[in-house]
């Protein structure tokens, strides 16, 4: 077996040569994860903000539920989505199983509770400060939600980042509903799992390195944006 050093060297070779397989897999990974995060934020941010800003019956229950759902096991979500989308399932006719769309659905289910629960916390804290001023100015419910989301936007970047981190690193759900089909539903994590078991460590490691670098870049970008905002006292 090759030494770790030479495998790593070959891995970097693949990355630098922009190996077509590698590029395809990274591209699909980003497409699936970013779509899932975007949809999750579209649902989770207003939902979390509403739970954080308004008092209504069932608010505590909803909060506990959202917090608990942050830790949904990916394989269970994968299995559930599989059952829904499989030929005999209620949405079987849509023929979505083993497509990137199925993977986006599964990841959206995983990330939405994270987006909603973290948003609730952020918005609740901000609302404590703003609530009386809003009441004094006569701001309506929609105005409150949008103002809170807007003023919390830099904290919410971190929320989106947490969702991205969860989705991009997740294997179980996308493996079950995507099936890890070459050129169709193969993403970074599922490929790493498969290629490692096949002994193709170069590609696995190359993908691992790309995954790490992507995480670093995105985290650094968010930190930079937040830092600028902090200096301008917008956080």
């Amino acid at each position: 077996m090759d030494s770790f050093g030479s495998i790593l060297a070959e891995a970097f070779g693949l990355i630098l040569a922009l190996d077509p397989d590698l590029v395809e897999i990274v591209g699909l990974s980003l497409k699936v994860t970013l779509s899932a995060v975007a949809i999750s934020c579209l649902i989770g941010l207003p939902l979390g903000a509403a739970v954080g800003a308004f008092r209504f019956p069932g608010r505590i229950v909803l909060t506990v539920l959202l917090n608990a759902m942050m830790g949904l096991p990916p394989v269970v979500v994968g299995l559930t989505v599989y059952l829904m989308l499989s030929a005999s399932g209620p949405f079987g006719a849509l023929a979505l199983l083993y497509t990137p769309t199925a993977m986006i659905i599964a990841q959206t289910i995983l990330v939405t509770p994270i987006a909603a629960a973290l948003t609730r916390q952020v918005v609740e804290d901000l609302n404590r400060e703003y609530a009386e001023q809003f009441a004094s100015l006569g701001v309506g419910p929609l105005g409150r939600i949008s103002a809170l989301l807007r003023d919390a936007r830099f904290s919410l970047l971190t929320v989106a980042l947490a969702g991205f981190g969860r989705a991009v690193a997740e294997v179980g759900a996308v493996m079950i509903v995507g099936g890890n089909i070459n050129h169709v539903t193969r993403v970074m994590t599922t490929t790493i799992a498969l290629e490692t078991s096949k002994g193709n460590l170069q590609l696995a490691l190359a993908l691992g390195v790309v995954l790490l670098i992507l995480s670093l870049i995105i985290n650094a970008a968010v930190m930079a944006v937040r830092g600028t905002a902090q200096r301008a006292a917008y956080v």
Partner: protein
Amino acid sequence: MFEAQTNTTSTDAARVPTPLLQTRSLGFEAGGQRLIDTVDVDIRTGRRTVIMGANGAGKSLLLRLLHGLIRPSAGQVLWQGRPLDRAGRYAQAMVFQRPVLLRRSVLANLSFALSARGIRGRERKRRIEIAMHQARLTALAYRPARVLSGGEQQRLAIARALACGPEILFLDEPTASLDPASIHAVEELIAQAHANGVTIVLVTHDLGQARRLGDDLIFLHGGRVVETGPAATVLDNPKSGPAKAWTEGRLFFESDPWNRSQRLGDRS
């Protein structure tokens, strides 16, 4: 327990139109405590009413009740003789003890408040310009509101409240922790608003300010009104124990002879 002392002269009492804002046996309880206790006050149209009293006397709570931000647990607040409702609230504006500014620019803070009141387009732009000019904030229009100095923040909070065109303005210690120049600037803004017909209700700990800005004075102690009347009269010749102690710079103790005389008076 004791009656509020009314320090009015007969000529004052003779010309009393319907007060802009009134409370009837107003009470507020929280945590099993009576924090506001049977308060009956009149805020007269176009006047400047000063509310004074020690820390924890209930001044901020009374302002919140008058502004309809919290629901009284007893009695009621009357706006132009009718129970205070949403429309009444829209005719009021408040500057809180700690100014609450959005995490946006000076301009955006003003524009947000006006939008909330349904004022848009050219009218909004006009009002923003006037507000920034009056509060001398034009040069700071694009600065994030939260990096402004304490005095500038206070001016912005007042300008924002006034931009909404209220009939009455509540100010909760607007000059606490400001330097003399900033205090002067804030007092000027208040005077300007008053000259434009805005009724002023001001909470302050500053005797000088109470004399400068106050027409009427309400003195609170332990959630109750212990003395009301023209500001100058009350401050020159306080009749109630707490107000007397306050103007003399003493602490007021429950063992004060005034308290005992009140209790005796109650029994007779």
